């Protein structure tokens, strides 16, 4: 039966992917260190969005609390760096594991919650996170309200600046995680994940262990977001509780929707949007006092996006591509 399915790895896909990676590899030599730094941030967001897309877009479980998993990854990395002076990159797998464990455990009660209730539980998680991070008993480890300062990783290769080096590391991690996500979603397990989204009852009738798949997907999603959190610590060089408030969760959701929540490449657009558009909105609202503040513009943008382009940037690209293919086929 598998033979009937066209091989999803088409030459066009490989060519497009290769070109994109090559382009991304050249970028830090074309732009300033600061811009590289911003792109690194965008890629870190992109990885977090990938986690959210797998969970919400492909598995149909809502989370408006992914800021919590971002915080888990960030604090794991920061604590290992600050208290134990680990190598930066050695903290990444640990952050991934810890975030996976927390996500998996949170996924267990989430099993019984559908749609809205899950959104509610994750909402509560997101709102409670900053307070938990400030808690006195953990202050020795978390640094309390002050947070923790950590150094930027040294450049891996001589001749690269610290920002450029970090850019390449983040790019490598993102590309790797994208390939992993693509393989996962195009596998038997991936079809099970999507079947659960489309019709949970039918999926379980077909013998899919929905409970196992849903919790594992929650864990994987949290893992992606945790890795992103850890990378973001390398970029920003510090963690503080209030950076992981509910608005970060909103940010992640916005990025997902903008890029296209049922897509893998869309996360790049989502990440870029999250880094550059708020700055832009801030500039505008500073320059013109009658323009509402950036967050309000963000909210308005979110609502308009969901009205008019609920499939996001990548969804629009795919639709355009399909239209072009149909048209050229009809013309022949």
């Amino acid at each position, binding site marked *: 039966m598998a033979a009937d399915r066209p091989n999803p790895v088409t030459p066009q896909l490989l060519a497009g992917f290769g070109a994109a990676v090559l382009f991304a590899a050249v970028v830090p030599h074309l732009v300033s260190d600061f811009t590289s730094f911003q792109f690194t941030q965008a890629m870190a967001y992109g990885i977090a969005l990938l986690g959210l897309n797998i969970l919400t877009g492909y598995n149909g479980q809502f989370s408006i609390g992914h800021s919590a998993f971002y915080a888990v990854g960030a604090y794991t990395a920061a604590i290992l760096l600050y208290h134990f002076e680990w190598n930066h990159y050695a903290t990444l797998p640990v952050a991934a594991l810890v975030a996976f464990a927390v996500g998996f455990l949170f996924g267990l009660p989430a099993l019984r919650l559908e749609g809205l209730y899950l959104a509610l539980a994750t909402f509560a998680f997101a709102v*409670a996170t900053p307070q938990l991070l400030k808690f006195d008993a953990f202050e020795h480890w978390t640094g309390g309200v002050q947070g923790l300062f950590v150094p930027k990783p040294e450049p891996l290769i001589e001749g690269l600046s610290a920002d450029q080096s970090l850019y390449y590391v983040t790019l490598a991690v993102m590309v790797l995680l994208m390939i992993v996500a693509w393989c996962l979603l195009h596998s038997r397990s991936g079809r099970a994940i999507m079947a659960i989204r489309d019709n949970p009852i039918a999926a379980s009738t077909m013998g899919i262990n929905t409970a196992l798949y849903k919790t594992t997907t929650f864990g994987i999603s949290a893992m992606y977001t945790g890795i992103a959190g850890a990378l973001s610590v390398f970029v920003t060089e510090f963690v503080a509780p209030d950076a992981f408030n509910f608005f970060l969760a909103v940010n992640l959701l916005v990025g997902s929707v903008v890029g296209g929540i049922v897509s893998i490449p869309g996360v790049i657009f989502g990440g870029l949007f999250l880094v550059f558009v708020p700055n832009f909105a801030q500039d505008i609202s500073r320059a013109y006092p009658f323009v509402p503040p950036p967050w*309000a513009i963000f909210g308005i943008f979110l609502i308009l996006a969901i009205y008019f382009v609920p499939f996001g940037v990548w969804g629009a690209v795919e639709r355009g591509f399909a239209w072009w293919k149909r048209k050229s086929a009809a013309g022949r």
Partner: protein
Amino acid sequence: MDLFLQLTLAGLAIGSIYSCVALAVVMIYQATDHFNFAQGEMAMFSTYVAWTLVGLGAPVWLAFLLAVGISFLAGVVIERVIVKPVENAPVLNQIIVFIGLLVIFNAVAGWIWEFTIKPFPSLFPEDLGFKSTLIGPHHLGVIALTLGVLALVFAFFRFTRVGLAMRAAAANPDSARMVGVSVGWMLALGWGLAASIGAVGGILVAPIVYLEPNMMAGVLLYGFAGALLGGVSSPGGAVLGGLVVGVLENWVGQYVPGGSELKLTFALILIVGVLVFKPAGLFGRVVVRRV
């Protein structure tokens, strides 16, 4: 013992505010099957409206009534203009619209009124003619006023034609339409009422937590917890749930070490706990799913 009674009574007062928010949440949930994540921020905005009216020289009670009325209209308009386009969209789209609303209200409030903390006058006089060491005048007033509001809401749904039509629209939209109920407008009315009840909650809680754009985040979370505990399909249960949550919050804050710093975490545990062990809440209907 005095401390315990004080805590309990103060908990009931705070809890009755949670009840208002819980009831607002449940009203929209019953009518549309959705949690309005923007409920807290809408209430915060209403409170700012009242604050502005007080600043303009209106007596505090007049400001209260006006703000509640304005909130009603705003709720109706929001349903008609912003929520209606996604009425039949997937749940995700609707949640995103609510979150968009939340963010907009929060940012615009900060923009108009700034993020500085503002004192808000109590609706109730300092001197009630008697003294009690157990409960302050504001807390006592809060309990009385919310009970009054809840009685009004109950009477509205139980004894008026519009209330009956709203219940019909929520319970079975298709049949309601057949007998001539305008379901769309009933939904809008539900939003208006929810916004008004939320406004009552916001104005009552403002003298306790002080007025600032983020003041409702915790209150909304407790409102959700109350609504879930009582059962999202039961307005009466939601009210009771809110009261219970308020009292529990105070007890935990006093008697559990570290409890006062982790109040939001307590709400989180309560929400997850209820959802896992008794998803229908204490008084809710258990919904049986059919294939």
